[in-house]
């Protein structure tokens, strides 16, 4: 009997025409999004690899110059594009793709792709994540919202229940029919995605893509199941197909379109980031004031010189067996690093606070939980961006220290006349980014997974409630 209802439901939904039309729309959008994603990821990776090689050539061929001059020339850290960004590009379009690593300054990521796009990008970009997070719930709700309500209106619901079937079984069968439809649409898409990813995208910076892909697939399966279950429940609870559809579509507008936008805006307004000029003015003022807030750079220089003179037991800078300029540059770098840690720490804390506001709103919208989980698994969220920025900054500090110390240890008595050459430039390593594993990023995503799980439980509870109520009413 159970199987009969499922088969009948599948046959009817496909004959009616609405389901095939919605499935075609979904597949068309998903394929277009996947193709766009593949093309973009492959192009970005190729450009990045070529740029890395060229940048290294430039670094090594800068000729004979003072190491501090080379430190100002610096290196570039280019952000890699994870394979799973084909599924969810996350904040990739809106975050810097390259960071200039130079002396004295922790620069921010520059060259955000969205700055090279037209204004229409602000409406949203076509990606698989967008299709799955925004369009899929709409399709699912439209497919399911009238499943039971239409039977009730036609009078066939009573006939079905009169066959001795429980409402729970009936709703379960309808739910299963919707799930089977989605699986029939989703499985070929998933296979296509993986085959394409393997064929077209050469390398992947993430070390645990397989487990991330599994998590992302399970996440979207759970997300779809929330809407399928809620759709069937709404259909059973509503008095008419008209009411069911209005309720389901209203829920979609609120949960999928409005709440994420309001939550993000509110997060930004509650935790605004400082305006760039004010931020850098504060950084400059703190650096100039020194660790105790009242020692200018000239006094700091004198203090360090005195300390070195004492240490080496000599009377003047010229008698030092080391290059004082290199030591002083490194001392100032270390002080600057403290200032950067403080200010950038506060900046990232604001980003995270703002994100936490969004996370709380996930209790009103499963889309927010799914969005964060999806970006996280794809390696395109704030946490991964922060990891890249931190790694790049650690590399900056390492190479600047190496250059300063080379000058300090080998350029005694030469000041800024000391020169480095190709041998030194070759000793300075290139930035080799190692993306984090999920385990390395802590338990943050478990909260989103738990919220998504809670949404699924709520949807199931609603379905159980709807089944009981339908049993009493019909």
């Amino acid at each position: 009997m159970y199987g009969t209802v499922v088969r009948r439901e599948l046959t009817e939904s496909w004959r009616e025409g609405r389901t095939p039309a919605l499935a075609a729309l979904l597949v068309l959008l998903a394929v277009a999004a996947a193709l766009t994603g593949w093309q973009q990821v492959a192009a970005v990776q190729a450009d990045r690899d070529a740029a890395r090689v060229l940048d290294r050539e430039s670094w090594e061929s800068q000729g004979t110059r003072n190491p501090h001059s080379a430190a100002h020339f610096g290196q570039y850290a280019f952000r890699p594009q994870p394979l799973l960004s084909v599924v969810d590009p996350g904040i990739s379009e809106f975050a810097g793709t390259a960071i200039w690593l130079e002396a004295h300054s922790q620069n921010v990521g520059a060259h955000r792709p969205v700055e090279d796009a037209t204004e229409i990008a602000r409406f949203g970009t076509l990606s698989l994540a967008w299709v799955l997070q925004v369009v899929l719930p709409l399709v699912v709700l439209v497919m399911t919202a009238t499943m039971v309500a239409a039977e009730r209106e036609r009078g066939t619901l009573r006939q079905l229940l009169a066959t001795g079937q429980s409402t729970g079984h009936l709703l379960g069968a309808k739910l299963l029919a919707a799930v089977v439809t989605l699986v029939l649409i989703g499985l070929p898409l998933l296979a296509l995605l993986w085959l394409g990813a393997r064929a077209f995208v050469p390398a992947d910076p993430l070390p645990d893509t397989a487990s991330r892909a599994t998590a992302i697939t399970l996440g979207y399966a759970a997300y779809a199941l929330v809407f399928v279950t809620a759709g069937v429940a709404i259909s059973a609870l509503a008095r008419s197909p008209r009411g069911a559809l209005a309720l389901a579509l209203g829920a979609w507008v609120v949960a999928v379109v409005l709440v994420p936008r309001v939550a993000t805006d509110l997060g930004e307004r509650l935790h605004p980031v400082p305006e760039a000029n004010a931020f850098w003015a504060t950084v400059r003022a703190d650096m100039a004031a020194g660790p105790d807030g009242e020692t200018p750079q000239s006094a700091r220089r004198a203090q360090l010189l005195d300390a070195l003179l004492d240490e080496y037991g000599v009377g003047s800078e010229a008698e030092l067996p080391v290059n004082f300029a290199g030591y002083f540059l490194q001392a100032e770098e270390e002080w600057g690093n403290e200032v950067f840690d403080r200010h950038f720490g506060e900046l990232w804390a604001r980003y995270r606070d703002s994100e936490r506001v969004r996370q709380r709103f996930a209790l009103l919208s499963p889309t927010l939980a799914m969005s964060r989980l999806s970006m996280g698994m794809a390696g395109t969220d704030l946490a991964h961006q922060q990891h890249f920025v931190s790694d790049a900054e650690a590399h900056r500090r390492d190479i600047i220290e190496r250059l300063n110390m080379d000058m300090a240890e080998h350029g005694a008595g030469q000041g800024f006349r000391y020169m480095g050459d190709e041998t030194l430039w070759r000793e300075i390593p290139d930035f080799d980014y190692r993306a984090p594993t999920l385990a390395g990023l802590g338990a943050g995503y478990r909260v989103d997974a738990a919220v998504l799980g809670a949404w699924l439980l709520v949807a199931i509870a609603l379905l159980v409630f709807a089944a009981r109520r339908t049993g009493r009413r019909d």
Partner: protein
Amino acid sequence: MSRAVASLDVRLLLRSRMLWPVLVALLAAGAYAFAGGVDRYGERADAASAFAAEVGGRAGTFRDTLAAMERGELDGDRARDAGLPTRVVRAAVWVPSPLAALSPGQAGLYPFFAEVGFFGREDALFSNYQLDNPLALQAGPFDLGFVVLYLLPLALLVLGFDVLAGDRESGNLRLLLAHPVSAARLVWTRLLLRAALVTVPLLALALAGGLIVGSPPIGLLAWVAVASAYALFWTALIAWLVTWFRTVQTTVLALVATWALLLLVLPSALHALVQGLHPPPSRVTLVAEARAAQVRVESAAAELMAEYMHDHPELANGGGAAIAPWMQTHHLVSREVERELAPLQARFRDSLDARQRVLSGLQFLVPPVLAQRAFNETAGTSLAAWRAFESCTFSLKRELGEVLGRHAIAARPLDAATYDALPPSLEFRADAGRAAPLQAGVALGWLLLVAVLLGGLAQRRLARVQP
């Protein structure tokens, strides 16, 4: 009799459970969006004026020192440093229009200030401004433009979905059409009444808010006119769509699907199409090429200098200013690197121009995109406004660079007369251009035309409506 039907409809509407929650929610969203817009506009205006004042202060100090030197009041290091071309600064500031409080558009994305002087190349004039929260940028601001573009049509859909099918399903349509009133008149009366009830208060809020923040009246009126035409477009679209479906269920489905298509699917697809047709060149390649060019040019700096001096023997004697040798060649090196990068930079401009051209043609197929661009143009927060500001800043840099570069190469300090002849700081105001009224006029005309066409089609179908 038709007046009686209309009057009855008004009474029913005013007592309906839908109207007041929808109206209150829409106005609350509008007020929230406007308050956020005012905050953002205020912060930006304050930051712009603070930056201009800070750079202006330094420029003023430089000018005072120059005057003191010419009066012979300086000696030692102060006299040596006075008039150094490397210390000249100008501010380039994109001053926001108050209308940015309604539509911040692209303004939050791009830098709105730059310090322009002797140092730096054009490609590095704007740097370290990308502090915005990427998540917030991704979601986009909740501004009044968003409320008009997304929520106003939703409110119209919620109030207008059952203007025909509801009465048809309940059987009331047969009764109503038994009176001397046509289905067309009934539907239009209902829809226009609903449109007025939600649009007028929202646009009154925009108008009052815009006036309070000091928006230019013409721009504000253009913004409101485009928003009104957009509301009319949706009203006509709803009128046409409701004639196609006999049940409320299918009508609701069609209306929401149309809303999702016009506001979510088509803009995303259009963006993908525009990017696919003219993909932007690679920024990382540009960065790497710029650095390779810098290494190449720096290694040939001495030859560049010799060549320049050969062409400009009048600069050969030296002016005694304390300028390091690398600073003397800096201008020539920067100019040469810029020259090498010019073809790459041109590819970016050409690619963006091509995309903008495609978008300008295809925007007519997606009215929300047309309206959004008109809002941004009117508010001076469009992509075109940013590009105009960027271009003006580059021009200022070039003009300053020519004079300061020559003085640096000759190690010659500036005198007061030369300094006073330098171009002043830039205060860029996008709303002074001609693009805004043009885009607003085009959007207004097209939206009204489409509204009339859809209205005409709806009228034809409504004339044939059977109960």
